[in-house]
Structure formats: structure tokens, C-alpha cells
């Protein structure tokens, strides 16, 4: 199939069938951004309910649903896909590759995530959302009436399969497809963190897959994994969930570390301080991330030996993290720092994340944790690391890579308003929650009595949440304003150091006309310092092999979506649900079969067309 042939199809068809990592990155960003707004709205509803004592705005089961969906949406449907958006948009460019290793799987991973997210959120319209908390502890989750938790299990199962594919894809891409000269120790730090995060995904998500299957079997097929009356054991769920769940928080935060490392170095006009220590710290955090899951279960009663081991392992993570914090500060030290919006978010990240880390070490002390457990202190802690860490990092990445992804630059004035309202709002929301926790306010309760004196701090917290909302609205306005103006910028608007800035704007769909030759860390900066106009090519201009677009990933994901709906209703709807299950899985299997059956060799962009497109380039 030739290029011209593909261009005849409609725009919608192009986006549904695309296997281009740059477009898939944008798809991830838009859907992740949408779910971020949904999850944010849910957070706002929670804060309004808690604004004063004994409010009746949002109570009981509905509060539980909103609370559960806030956590679930933010982790699985907002944070993860936005991370994948950056990995797609940036990693192949940073290593000098023309695409990811498995473009078809990349598309499949996105559509599975998308349909899983849609399935989960359909629960709002079909009788009620899941209400057992984002951790879905058994037996609360197995006893929960209605279909809410079924939507949770099936929706996340489908989207989790997509995430696992993404993880494998990026591991292979980074190992096999680096440009000549791009050794592991010359990779930009964002690529390194994407690499380690993908490894964590590979070894953490299958545990969750099984956890979801067990929970699904207990709820839908009357299995007895978590039913103590039949010999089951609810603690197994907690172990499985956290064997996944703790690596998951490092899956989330490591790419943010990568973004900060890129942004701080670029805007300090300096090489990242302690690059090899940063790499080592990243790998060490990834490794230790698997050794600490039981610190979520100190109060379960595993005994003093287990608690002590997990407490010490948890505290050990503070060391590589501290290495990173100091390296960022030393990178800025003596640099010619430009405080663009991207850099403001990065600089704001550093002290905020340290605060989250300090409460983390406090929580790691097992005896003290008996006091903090399930209180607002924990809520404050994980929002400091996830919002104050990850989300600030993602905003930083958005402002930094927006010109690369969309060819336009976000407005800096609005960006600074965005930063300050969001940043101040964030601290106003979550700083008081530490004290609410220490004063005894338990998490997940929908109200508190007046005489407990929790009203004023809760009120301040809600005002902060409104500040964060204002910040987010300014961000949305910024996007609209920027695209309405549509001022194109050059391919290298920040005077960048790494390969993703070595291409013209917009990025050609084959990325690099000639694969670049990498001569060291900060490959582009080295060429700039040597007085070269661009990268030195590693090959003459020749035919470029490209993968074909395909609708199969979309249809396959739709099939599993239908099967998921069928499973949810299999005990109440009878035959139609059974037909949906069989039909849905059938669609999925037929798509797999077609993928195997149809020979797909991709197509070539010919040298002559490339030369015509790029006049004035030496062959």
C-alpha cells in the first residue's frame, strides 16, 4: 500500500487505524486528559461534601462510588495514559528510531485502554459505579451489591492488558532500535525512566491480571478465593493487589523523574549533574519497588519480623530518591536558568516531592503507621507524591514537549497563571490534610461531626481544591487559545539537547530522513557545540520501510469490550449476556486470526519521493 493510497481515506479513519507512535501519543494524551478532567470533577465533588461538618451534598453509597471512581480513574485512566502519551511521543525520537518495535501492538494497546476506560465509566449510567475503594479489598468488594465492582474488574482487566502490551513494546524498542552510537549510557534520562517503568509494568501487571480474574470468579462464578466460610482467604487479595500496587506507584513516578531531568537540564543550559548516578538510582528504585508491598499491610498482623523487613526496605528507597533530588539541585546550581512554565513546574516539583517523601519515611516506620493507617495523613502523603510529584511532572512535560507533539507553543503567560494557581491550590488542599489525619479524621468517611473540630482545616482544603480547578481550567483555556492562534514554531524552540529536537516541525511521519549518528550524551547539543547545523547522518538517504495502518486493533478491542459487558451481566441477563460473551471473544479471536493470516509486509517510501520532499538535503 502506498502513501498516497492512505491519504485518500477520511481523517477519522486515519486516526482509528493509525500505527504511528506520534499519533498514538496524541490519542493517549487526549483520552488521558479527558479522564483527568472526569477524575478531577469527582475530586471536587468529594471536597465539596467535606467542606463543612455533617454536610448532605454527597453521602453514603454515592459518596463511596465517587471516591472509588476518583482514585481508579486518576491512576489507571488519567496518569498511566498520559505517561504513555509522552513515552510514545518522545522515546522513539530520543533514541533515533523511526517507530516503536511493534506499531500494531501499540495501536492495540491504546484501543484496549480506551475501551476498558469507557467500560468502567459506563457503570455510572448502568446502575451505579464501583464502591469498594480503588483497592477493592475483599470481602468488601466481593460482597458489594449491584454491578459496580464487576465494571471495575472487567474495565480494568481490558485496559490493563493494553498497558502490558505497551510495556513490552517500549522495552523492545529501547533495547533493539537505538540509533548507531546511542549506547545505554548515552540515552536521555526520560528514555531511561521509560525503560525501567516498562520493566516494572511487565512484572507488576500480570499479578493484577490474576487478582482481577480471582475477584471476577468470586463475584460472577461463585468461586471461593476470598470467602472465609468456604476456606478462602481475603488477605490473598491484599497481597496480590499490592504486589502490583506498589510497583505501580514507581511506574507512575519514574517517568516524572525523567521529565524533570530533561527540563531542568535544558533550562539550566547544563548537562544533567551526575548522569550515571541518576541512571543507577532509577534502576535501584525500580528494583526496590518490588520489595516493599507489605508496607501497605502493616496493620494486617503479619508479625513483627515481616513488618520490620518491609519497613527497612521501604526506608531504603529514600536513598536513591535523595540522590535524584540533589542531582537536580546541582544541575540548576550555576546554570543559566530560564524559568519557563515547564521549568516552573519542575522546580515546584522538587520541594513538593521531598515533602511527600518525608511523610513516606514516617509511614514506613511500622509502629507509627498504626497511628497513621487509614487516616487523612495517608491521603495527604500519597497526594503529595502523586499530584505534587507526578502531575506537576506531567504538566512540566506537557509545556516542554507541546511544540514537538503539536507544532505550536503553549502560551507562557497563561502557563504561569496555570502553574501558580495549581501549585498554591495544591498545597492549600493537601497540607492541612496531614493535620486532619493526625487529629484522627479517617479516610473514605463521607462526613464528620461538628464537635471534632475538623471543620476549619477541611474548609481550607476545599478552597485549595477550587484553586487547583481554576489552574486546570486556565490550562484548558491555554490549549484552546494556543490552537486558535496556531503560531507554528521551529523544531527546536527551547534550544534542546536531545534528539527529539533534531527534526523539523511538524515531525515527518518517518521521523528521521536519515538515522542520526550519536556521538555522546545530549547528542544534539554535542553537534551544536561542534558548530554543525544538525545531526551527522549514519546512513545515506534510502528507501524507508513503514508499517501499514490497520483497523484490527480497534475491532479487536471492541470485541473484548462487548465480551466484558456480557460477563458483567451474565448472571442477571442470561442468554443475551452469554451471546455477548461468546460473540465478543469471537470477534477478538477472529481479529487475531486475521492478523496472523494476512501477510503484512508494510510499505516503502521511495528515495525519490523523500528527495522531492526534502529539497536541498545532501544525499
Amino acid at each position, binding site marked *: 500500500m502506498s502513501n498516497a493510497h492512505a491519504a485518500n481515506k477520511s481523517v477519522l479513519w486515519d486516526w482509528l487505524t493509525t500505527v504511528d507512535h506520534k499519533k498514538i501519543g496524541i490519542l493517549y494524551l487526549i483520552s488521558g486528559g479527558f479522564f483527568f478532567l472526569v477524575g478531577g470533577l469527582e475530586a471536587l465533588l468529594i471536597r465539596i461534601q467535606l467542606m463543612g461538618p455533617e454536610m448532605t451534598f454527597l453521602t453514603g453509597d454515592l459518596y463511596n462510588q465517587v471516591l472509588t471512581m476518583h482514585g481508579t480513574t486518576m491512576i489507571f485512566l488519567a496518569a498511566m495514559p498520559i505517561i504513555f502519551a509522552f513515552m510514545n511521543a518522545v522515546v522513539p525520537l530520543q533514541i533515533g528510531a523511526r517507530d516503536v518495535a511493534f506499531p500494531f501492538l501499540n495501536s492495540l494497546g491504546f484501543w484496549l485502554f480506551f475501551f476498558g476506560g469507557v467500560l468502567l465509566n459506563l457503570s455510572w449510567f448502568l446502575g451505579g459505579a464501583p464502591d469498594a475503594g480503588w483497592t477493592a479489598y475483599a470481602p468488601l468488594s466481593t460482597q458489594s451489591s449491584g454491578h459496580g465492582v464487576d465494571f471495575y474488574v472487567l474495565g480494568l482487566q481490558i485496559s490493563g492488558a493494553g498497558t502490558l502490551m505497551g510495556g*513490552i513494546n517500549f*522495552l523492545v524498542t529501547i533495547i533493539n532500535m537505538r540509533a548507531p552510537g546511542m549506547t545505554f549510557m548515552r540515552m536521555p534520562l526520560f528514555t531511561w525512566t521509560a525503560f525501567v517503568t516498562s520493566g516494572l509494568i511487565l512484572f507488576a*501487571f*500480570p499479578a493484577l491480571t490474576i487478582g482481577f480474574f480471582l475477584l471476577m470468579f468470586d463475584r460472577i*462464578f461463585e*468461586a471461593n478465593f476470598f470467602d472465609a466460610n*468456604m*476456606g478462602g482467604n481475603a488477605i490473598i487479595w491484599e497481597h496480590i493487589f499490592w504486589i502490583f500496587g506498589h510497583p505501580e506507584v514507581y511506574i507512575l513516578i519514574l517517568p516524572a523523574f525523567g521529565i524533570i531531568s530533561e527540563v531542568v537540564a535544558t533550562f539550566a543550559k547544563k548537562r544533567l549533574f551526575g548522569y550515571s548516578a541518576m541512571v543507577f538510582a532509577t534502576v535501584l528504585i525500580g528494583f526496590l519497588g518490588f520489595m516493599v508491598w507489605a508496607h501497605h499491610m502493616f496493620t494486617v498482623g503479619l508479625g513483627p519480623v515481616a513488618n520490620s523487613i518491609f519497613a527497612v526496605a521501604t526506608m531504603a528507597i529514600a536513598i536513591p530518591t535523595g540522590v535524584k533530588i540533589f542531582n537536580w539541585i546541582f544541575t540548576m546550581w550555576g546554570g543559566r536558568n530560564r524559568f519557563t512554565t515547564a521549568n516552573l513546574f519542575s522546580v515546584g516539583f522538587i520541594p513538593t516531592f521531598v515533602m511527600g517523601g518525608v511523610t513516606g519515611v514516617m509511614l514506613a516506620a511500622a509502629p507509627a503507621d498504626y497511628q497513621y493507617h487509614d487516616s487523612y495523613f495517608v491521603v495527604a502523603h500519597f497526594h503529595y507524591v502523586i499530584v505534587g510529584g507526578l502531575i506537576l511532572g506531567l504538566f512540566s512535560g506537557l509545556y516542554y514537549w507541546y511544540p514537538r507533539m503539536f507544532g505550536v507553543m503553549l502560551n507562557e503567560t497563561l502557563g504561569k497563571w496555570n502553574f501558580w494557581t495549581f501549585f498554591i491550590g495544591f498545597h492549600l488542599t493537601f497540607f492541612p490534610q496531614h493535620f486532619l489525619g493526625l487529629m484522627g479524621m479517617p479516610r473514605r468517611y463521607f462526613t464528620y461531626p461538628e464537635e471534632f473540630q475538623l471543620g476549619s482545616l477541611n474548609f481550607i482544603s476545599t478552597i485549595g481544591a477550587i484553586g487547583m480547578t481554576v489552574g486546570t481550567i486556565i490550562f484548558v483555556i491555554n490549549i484552546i487559545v494556543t490552537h486558535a492562534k496556531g503560531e507554528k514554531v521551529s523544531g527546536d524552540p527551547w534550544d534542546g539537547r536531545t534528539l527529539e529536537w533534531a527534526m523539523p516541525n511538524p515531525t515527518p511521519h518517518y521521523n528521521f530522513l536519515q538515522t542520526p549518528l550519536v556521538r555522546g550524551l545530549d547528542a544534539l547539543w554535542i553537534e551544536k557545540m561542534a558548530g554543525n547545523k544538525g545531526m551527522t547522518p549514519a546512513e545515506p538517504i534510502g528507501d524507508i520501510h513503514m508499517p501499514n495502518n490497520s483497523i484490527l486493533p480497534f475491532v479487536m478491542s471492541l470485541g473484548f469490550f462487548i465480551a466484558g459487558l456480557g460477563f458483567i451481566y451474565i448472571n442477571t441477563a442470561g442468554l443475551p449476556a452469554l451471546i455477548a460473551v461468546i460473540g465478543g471473544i469471537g470477534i477478538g*479471536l477472529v481479529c487475531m486470526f486475521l492478523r496472523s493470516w494476512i501477510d503484512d509486509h508494510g510499505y516503502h517510501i521511495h528515495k525519490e519521493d523523500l528527495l522531492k520532499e526534502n529539497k536541498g538535503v545532501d544525499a
Partner: protein
Amino acid sequence: MDVGQRLTDQNFPESPEKATLEGKNKFLGFWLFLGGETVLFATLFGTYLGLRNSFGKGPEASEIFQLPIVFIATMILLTSSLTSVYAVLALKENRVKAMRGWFFVTLLLGVAFLGLEIYEFVHYVHEGHTFTSGAFGSAFYTLVGFHGGHVLFGVLWIAALLVRNSGRGLTLYNSPKYYLFALYWHFVDVVWVFIFTVVYLMGKVG
């Protein structure tokens, strides 16, 4: 060379499954996938070990397990691993007919294994050991059933490959597909060795 072109003895590369970037990617990606699958089965084994003595309303493991039939199933599956090795050896030497023959034997052995497993499950259900009879039953059928599901998928996979490529020789495009199936099949076989030990032998004597 065009990846869809039939390989001859003259231009046959040393490892046709890894001769292209796509082949290399698939090779590495599949090994990583098997790493993930290991975690998947490890979680199932962990759950099973936690619940293997919680019989609930069902019979005890040592009462119902029939080692002779499980032993035959084990031998069948181990043999199928051997035949897939022969197939891969033939693949590396461009002996297409031999390769397809050995893969076909692998397929037949896989089907035989599935037949025995279904027979075994039906027998257990008659003895009162069901998916819902207790935590042990749930854990047993989930672990062994997941493995059986993997065997079934492998059987469908190799059947599709054999039908699609009938009358076609080895190319740089289809060699990785055959090779990856063999990798998958070995993995499924190794998991069974653990099931035989942890579920059946420990169920009888542990």
C-alpha cells in the same frame, strides 16, 4: 531480500527467525512476554499454595487425584516439547516438510493432552470436587484451567500457522512465527512440570 520470498538452501541465513529487525523484535518481545507470563503463573501458584488445604465442602486432594492419568498427560506434554524441538531443528536447516510434520505431531499431542484434562475434570466433578465446592476447588481449577487454556491457545495457534503456510516454504516473514510458537510451547510445558509437582505430587503426599 524481500521478506516474503521463499528461502533456498543457498541464501538460507543461520537463524532465519532473527535475520530481520522485525524478527529480532519479535524474538526479544516474546521472551519478555514469557517473563510476564511467569509472574502470572507465579501469582496463581502462590494463591493455590495458600488455599490448597482449604477443601470447604469438597473432598480432599489426596482422595481424588489419580496419578496414573496425570502421569500419562505429563508424558504426552513432555513428548510434545521434544517434537517441537525437532521441528525447530528442521526449521534451522530449511527442511520444511520435516518441520511441518513435527509441528503437526506436536499439535496432535496437545489435543490428546487436552482430551485427558477434560476427562480428568469431568471425573473430579462427579466426585464432588468442583469450582465452587471450596477454596481448594476454585484455586485448583483456576491454576490448572489457566494452563489448559494456554495449551488450547497453542493448539489453535499452530493449527492456524500450519494451514496458512501449507504449500509455502520458509521465508524471513514466517520463520519467526514458527519459532515463537515453539518458545511458547516450551513455556507451557515447563509450567506443567511445576503443576505436576506442586499440585499433584504434593497433593498426594504433602
